[in-house]
């Protein structure tokens, strides 16, 4: 098909042809085309098949608002053909048809299935037998999909970006009102961001012959410093934050003031056959002709119920499109416009509307008639042969963003629309969305909104305020009488076989809405969910008003009474990847991480740290610690410095045992509990000097413990300061029979047991690195936890490793500590565990005079037996039950396994479990049920290894 003559304002560059393919066949378009305009110009009217009935669908709005032009481009599904600029070499494919666009097997649902597929059919049809649901689901998903995603992330090849933008004024919508608002606010000195969905700003001006004005306004905006985001959709308004999706970037715009200039959306008409390719919105037809020089048809008929349709018909004619006839539902009004149309040789039929369209897969004939209130044809219908029907069923304000911000919508019968009002503070509307539709008043209302926004922020002066006052007066005068629009009649749903669609995204027909109302789904929110009308990708842009009207008709309520459904984000369908934005995955790594990698460590997540889980042979690593010497990176431990004259007092109030009595250079284990007496964390406390304590916490608990301490401190305000040094201090544990010898070779400290006994903390240089050495024994062997500045950690690690201490990871450490019954908070305790239920009653000193957090609850707990006890167990059969497996008694779950491992040293399967108190005695038999397997175990209350701690203290 050839293009229309060249004119100003067209986007295409005829000197730059672009080659692309559609379903594998080569096609051609021009630079500046969209995929849809190029296909249309090439004679391709059908782009995809519809969601449910697999009907052929093509161009409708010409600006990316509906789901009927979704295609797959270079493997990426869901691309809107009428909004996506054509690029050289693009591989475009249709969606939702198999085996081909022309012959789709699933289209059988259209012919035979509509009676079988009423609303809610799958709730009703596929419930039995239940076990087949996964199969049904697979078939349904395939049948009702809208394109397919490549399975693998790598095949998607798409990286997304997040961008934060703060500004004074955010303007949503780049039509004449939005441009005017942005320009005015920027001229007054405000920092303005404007986003617009189209390829260039200008909105309706671009296609309506005012492209020069549009481009001039946009240029002035740029000059005034407005940041214009094109092809950018505002997805939603979230407590003042507007999320804007633009290609690969998600902009999060936080503005002090917002102007919604989101326009109004031309509405379709509802009649049988209203989805045939060739039936489109009058604005869509106009865009094809004006912007892309594509004639929407050889012969075009226009059917409208307001002025806009007449104007568009005349514009089409002036662009060289052959318009055969115009049907206007209104019997009178706009006589001059009608005369102009007649003068152009176009037949004008007043008081009539489209009541039917037919053709084989494409529009061939339209039926026009006068109708009664129920949409039944009156008198003699007129049949006109044509291949394009441009419809205009009024315009619905695109108020979603305003409603999300808290505005309310009210129905205006005369103008046949829901108009938003009662705007929240800081939010303005401008242009068609608030009823200022004609370009002049849209410009005025935009300028006023821009001025009001900037003035409210303190920009501008008295003169500007006066000008805004004047504009307000002029605008009120101009909008006293809105342009009349006759509501198209609701369609009679009785006795018709051809489908009349209310929602083209979701293939919901007028009959479906009536059917749902008859079944009792008579509120708009229920009707929406039951029929799925308005739930498709266009978010009700073209179907909300029709669905409301259909329901009003079926229930006898007024439109105002039926109301709108709640406006929810996103306004535009958005790939989840765009919402995810940049893939942030904050990971902490110790200063020794590089060394672990070099040593072949298996690295896994441990809380928010990446940790060496093992170095390939956890059992051998564990044995090395017990037989020789091992070295583990424990930099992940939380580390706090608590300092001040009342530091001891602070710790006494937080820990259930005494910390203020610690002597400088000594270490004590402590648990932390909530006020309810539940264990929240544990660790050691070393007193460094009279006023300074060094507190370690669990690896995952560091931030929470710091917050917990400072929270109470905010209340108590003791003379003590808390500093988290977790990330600056590296720590490594050198343990094993040869640990002392290795250490002695690297330091001048006296490492003998007498000079440096168990639970002592000493300062000294090790391998030239300043260290705090804590003699503690989490793994059960003689051990020294060396704390040093992270920037020096590598030198220290290297020096120790060079003396033969074998690096061991988290997994061997877990075996070793299990042998000693050393618990892991969060693993061997849960949110219900008290110290008494976790064999840690000894760490609670109720005899201390000091009040402490959790004391009152613990006093009560101390008086009664805990519901469960934490004990060790051995499985004589050698099975290693899963952690989390149930402890059962006579078929009833009475406890659970919290930790279990095979000990290479002991040659036994060992574990810790929560069991009923009665079973908490040596030799008691317990039964573990592990995924259907029955495992017998014997309780052992003392540690499996070195029960008296002689090794540890040696």
């Amino acid at each position: 098909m050839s293009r229309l003559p060249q004119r100003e304002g067209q986007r295409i560059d005829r000197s730059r042809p672009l080659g692309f393919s559609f379903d594998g066949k080569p096609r051609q378009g021009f630079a500046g085309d969209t995929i849809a305009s190029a296909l249309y110009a090439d004679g391709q009217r059908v782009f995809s098949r519809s969601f449910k009935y697999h009907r052929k669908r093509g161009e409708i709005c010409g600006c990316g608002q509906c789901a009927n032009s979704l295609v797959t481009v270079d493997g990426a599904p869901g691309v809107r053909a009428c909004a996506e600029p054509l690029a050289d070499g693009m591989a475009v494919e249709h969606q939702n048809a198999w085996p081909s666009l022309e012959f789709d097997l699933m289209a059988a649902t259209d012919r035979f299935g509509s009676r079988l597929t009423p609303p809610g059919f799958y709730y009703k049809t596929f419930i039995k037998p239940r076990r087949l649901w996964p199969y049904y689901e697979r078939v349904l998903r395939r049948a009702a999909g809208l394109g397919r995603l490549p399975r693998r992330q790598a095949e998607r090849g798409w990286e997304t970006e997040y961008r934060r933008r703060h500004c004074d004024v955010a303007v949503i919508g780049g039509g004449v009102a939005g441009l005017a608002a942005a320009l005015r606010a920027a001229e007054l000195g405000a920092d303005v961001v404007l986003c617009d969905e189209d390829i260039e700003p200008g909105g309706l001006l671009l296609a309506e012959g005012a492209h020069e004005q549009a481009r001039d306004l946009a240029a002035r905006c740029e000059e005034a410093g407005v940041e214009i985001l094109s092809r950018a959709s505002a997805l939603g308004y979230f407590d003042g934050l507007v999320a804007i999706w633009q290609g690969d970037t998600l902009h999060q715009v936080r503005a002090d003031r917002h102007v919604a200039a989101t326009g109004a959306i031309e509405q379709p008409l509802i009649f049988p056959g209203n989805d045939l390719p060739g039936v489109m919105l009058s604005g869509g037809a106009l865009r094809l002709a004006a912007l892309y020089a594509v004639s929407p048809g050889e012969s075009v008929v226009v059917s409208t119920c307001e002025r806009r349709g007449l104007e568009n018909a005349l514009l089409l004619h002036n662009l060289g499109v052959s318009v055969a006839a115009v049907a206007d539902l209104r019997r009178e009004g706009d006589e001059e416009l009608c005369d102009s149309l007649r003068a152009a040789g176009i037949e004008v039929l007043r008081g009539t509307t489209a009541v039917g369209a037919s053709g084989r897969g494409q529009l061939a004939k339209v039926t026009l008639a006068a109708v009664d209130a129920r949409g039944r044809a009156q008198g003699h219908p007129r049949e006109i042969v044509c291949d394009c029907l441009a419809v205009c069923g009024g315009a619905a304000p695109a108020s979603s963003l305003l409603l999300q911000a808290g505005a309310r919508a009210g129905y205006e019968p005369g103008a046949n629309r829901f108009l938003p009002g009662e705007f929240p503070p800081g939010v303005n509307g401008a242009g068609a969305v608030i009823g200022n539709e004609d370009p002049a008043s849209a410009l005025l209302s935009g300028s006023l909104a821009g001025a009001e926004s900037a003035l409210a922020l303190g920009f501008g002066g008295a003169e500007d305020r006066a000008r805004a006052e004047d504009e307000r007066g002029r605008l009120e005068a101009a909008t006293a009488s809105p342009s009349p629009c006759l509501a198209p009649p609701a369609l009679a749903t009785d006795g018709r076989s051809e489908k009349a669609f209310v929602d083209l995204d979701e293939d919901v027909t007028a009959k479906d809405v009536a059917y749902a109302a008859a079944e009792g789904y008579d509120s708009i929110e229920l009707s929406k969910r039951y029929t799925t009308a308005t739930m498709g990708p266009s978010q009700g842009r073209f179907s909300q008003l029709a669905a409301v009207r259909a329901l009003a008709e079926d229930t006898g309520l007024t439109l105002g009474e039926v109301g709108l459904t709640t406006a929810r984000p996103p306004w535009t369908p958005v790939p989840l990847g765009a919402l995810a934005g940049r893939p942030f995955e904050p990971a902490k790594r110790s200063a020794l991480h590089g060394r672990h990698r070099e040593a072949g460590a298996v690295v896994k997540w441990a809380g928010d740290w990446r940790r060496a889980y093992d170095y390939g042979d956890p059992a051998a690593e564990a044995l090395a610690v017990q037989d020789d010497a091992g070295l583990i990176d424990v930099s992940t431990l939380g580390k706090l410095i608590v300092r001040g004259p009342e530091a001891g007092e602070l710790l006494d109030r937080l820990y259930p045992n005494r910390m203020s009595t610690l002597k400088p250079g000594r270490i004590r284990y402590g648990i932390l509990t909530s006020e309810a007496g539940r264990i929240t964390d544990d660790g050691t406390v070393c007193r460094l000097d009279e006023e300074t304590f060094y507190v370690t916490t669990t690896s995952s608990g560091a931030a929470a413990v710091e917050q917990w301490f400072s929270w109470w401190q905010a209340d108590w305000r003791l003379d003590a300061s808390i500093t988290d040094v977790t990330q600056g201090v590296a720590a490594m544990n050198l343990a094993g029979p040869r640990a002392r010898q290795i250490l002695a070779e690297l330091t001048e400290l006296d490492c003998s047991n007498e000079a440096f006994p168990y639970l002592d903390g000493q300062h000294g240089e090790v391998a030239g690195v300043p260290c705090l050495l804590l003699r503690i024994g989490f793994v059960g062997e003689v051990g020294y936890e060396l704390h040093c500045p992270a920037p020096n950690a590598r030198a220290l690690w290297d020096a120790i490793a060079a003396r033969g201490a074998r690096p061991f990871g988290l997994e061997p450490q877990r075996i070793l500590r299990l042998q000693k019954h050393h618990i892991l908070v969060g693993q061997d305790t849960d949110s219900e565990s008290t110290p008494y239920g976790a064999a840690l009653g000894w760490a609670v000193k109720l005899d201390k005079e000091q009040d402490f957090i959790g004391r009152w609850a613990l006093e009560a707990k101390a008086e009664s037996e805990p519901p469960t006890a934490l004990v060790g167990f051995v499985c004589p059969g050698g099975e290693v039950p899963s952690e989390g497996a149930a402890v059962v008694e006579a078929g009833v779950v009475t406890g659970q396994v919290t930790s279990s491992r095979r000990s290479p040293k002991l040659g036994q399967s060992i574990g810790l479990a929560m069991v009923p108190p009665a079973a908490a005695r040596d030799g008691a038999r317990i039964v573990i049920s592990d995924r259907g397997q029955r495992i017998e175990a014997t309780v052992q209350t003392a540690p499996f290894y070195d029960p008296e701690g002689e090794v540890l203290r040696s």
Partner: protein
Amino acid sequence: MSTAFISPLGSAEAPARGPFADAAAAAGAVTEVRDGWEVVTSFGDAAAERAACASSVGFADFSFLAKLELQAPAATLESAAGALELGSAERREGAWLCPVAPELRLELHPPAAAAARREQLEAAGVRTCDLTASLGAISVCGPRATETIARFSAIDTRPKSLPVSGFRPGSIARTPAYLLREDEERFLILFGAAYGAYFWETVATAAAGLGGRPVGLDALAAPSEVPHA
């Protein structure tokens, strides 16, 4: 001092290594030991690095800066270290004095000056903790610096919200951090040292998307805190 084990101690043979050391090495860093720290002088192309800072964005490791945390009653802080207004840091004798809360401050000093400063503050009754190793520092500079930061932080960097010397504790790359505007087009980000590799990747990706790159100290106009061999 009983907390000596938290203060990095470097020598020419065994220099202190900041949280970016591994990532910078992998990116081809040319290093040198200054004031006991392994610092990056360039990534092999100082001219291109200077160009990035002038026309787009460059980022450089400043983790060697000494960072002192000061805690004391507001009046004590004021008499010992001068009055500061929350939100605004002050440049004084090669140091940045940054207020976090009325009773909490951060000070950034050249490595060599830290020990003496600490003693001076302690003597004045200010509890001073050395966070040099706990916080990494990255300088982001160039005309695209604010756009780079906007790729991973929601902190408002418009000049009217964050003027030169403005100091903002807040979330950066989803971690707790501090942002200091050293100059119109120059920012210093302080972040948890364990996030070094993650931070490097985050900043590098954002900068690369805007035409930026990592740069060595040689590429930056030598501000007073850059230590020299």
